[in-house]
């Protein structure tokens, strides 16, 4: 079942505020490694780099995608699965990059075959993963690097869920929420995350 981000979680995701409708399943403990918890193991598998494709270990990633689809399917409103539009947060590597990882879109497709998944958000320039840069970009910088893929904008969604695997500061969510609300005024936007990141003691 989803947990809704409420006041108690906001200190961990400082770009979000009380009005954001964001939901998550588990908690991913940063820096604790694979074996720390079920959620950590799941997220590690899901994020396994695509350059491992073809190796035996890659089946863990594929299994994690199927599992994520199943968990989301059982937690989502069936009506939303039929009528909602699912927008993956774009991966850091662009589509022509060998390290391009389409896992979030694959997770969404694993929810239901006919689901409306649209990669509505394009990056103007490819960005290094947020964890690789010294200063994480804020929502404003991210927003400036995003544009709507107009070829996918029709039909106008009736409700949008932005989807990502791990909710960290909420910067990407806020940037995409803003651009979607500008493009589709009045359409409700929410955020679905497989896990939210929590700090660890080390």
């Amino acid at each position, binding site marked *: *079942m*989803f*947990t*809704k981000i*409420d*006041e*108690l*979680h906001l*200190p961990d995701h400082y770009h979000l505020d009380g009005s954001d*409708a964001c*939901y*998550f*399943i*588990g*908690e991913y*403990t940063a820096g*604790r490694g694979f074996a*720390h*918890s079920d*959620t950590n193991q799941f997220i590690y598998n899901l994020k396994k780099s695509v350059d491992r494709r073809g190796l035996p270990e890659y089946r863990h990633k594929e299994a994690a995608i199927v599992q994520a689809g199943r968990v989301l399917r059982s*937690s*989502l*409103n*069936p*009506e*939303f699965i039929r*009528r*909602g539009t699912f927008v993956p947060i774009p991966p850091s590597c662009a589509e022509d990059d060998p390290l391009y990882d389409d896992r979030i879109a694959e997770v969404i497709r694993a929810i239901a075959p006919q689901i409306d998944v649209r990669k509505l958000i394009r990056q103007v320039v490819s960005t290094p993963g947020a964890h690789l840069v010294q200063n994480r970009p804020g929502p404003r910088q991210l927003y400036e690097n995003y544009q709507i893929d107009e070829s996918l904008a029709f039909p106008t969604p*009736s*409700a949008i*869920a932005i989807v990502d695997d791990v909710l960290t500061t909420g910067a990407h969510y806020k940037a995409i929420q803003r651009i979607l609300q500008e493009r589709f005024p009045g359409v*409700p936007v*929410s955020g*679905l995350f497989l*896990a939210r990141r*929590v*700090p*660890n*003691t080390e």
Partner: protein
Amino acid sequence: MATAALLPTIRAISPLREMGAYEALWAEPKASFKSLAERFREFPDRLPSDFVSEHQTAYFTQLVLQMLRESGVMQFGIRVHRAGEYPKKLRDAEDPVELLYYRGWWDLVDTPSVAVVGTRQPSQQAIKNTTRLVRMLVSDGYSIASGLAMGIDTAAHNAAINSGGKTIAVIGTPINQVYPKKNSDLQEMIARDYLLISQVPVFRYSQQTYTRNRTFFPERNKTMSALTEATVIIEAGPTSGTLIQARAALAQNRKLFILDSSFRNPELEWPREFESRGAIRVRTYDDIRKNLSLHVHQNR
């Protein structure tokens, strides 16, 4: 339904609301951990908020948030059964708690941990034994859980911290109260740098006398046992609350260790009683080590 907004989830847990509902359930005069557990056993798909009106839930959420803030607890977390990261191991308890409050670093719950508990009036030797044992457990990679009471508990937490280990306090007061007061600094330190856990309802506790609130202490021992893989009893009298934890540990299929000194005390019958039911008599540290998970894994 046609006009209802299209929401992504059928229902999502708001931990804060569940806290309000839990507090409301506890505000009922006859509430106990047993009676609550019975209700949830009967309706296993329900959350606390399913038993309480919207209005009551909102009222207690605000009230308890305010109480916590007024006592200086600005940040805390909630674990509620059926939401992510609720520790499955809690379900091994006879009357498992549906909701927990915590402060500090939740990730410690998922580290291998051992509870070290005992009397509030220990001998000097018992304190020494605690410190030495905790040091060894820490160097073997275990977090140390205890109950923040006087005596052995305090020694166990301090030894864990002083030897560079991690510690978890499972307390018998709400997260905004301290007992004994002497341990205020220790509790704050644990809440800041380690992990402090309580199942005790904030509002109910504030409405009761000390005598009524004392019944919360043994309840937390059952939870502490469920959260850890083993309990070590350093020293305990025949009527000690520690023995509640000993019983719970065996009932929950956790390892129970009793130091040899208790067996050698002719006035005590409980060590042999527990031994006959599966407790392990500890003559050397190795008796503990070889029965714990990290050792078993290393030697697989």
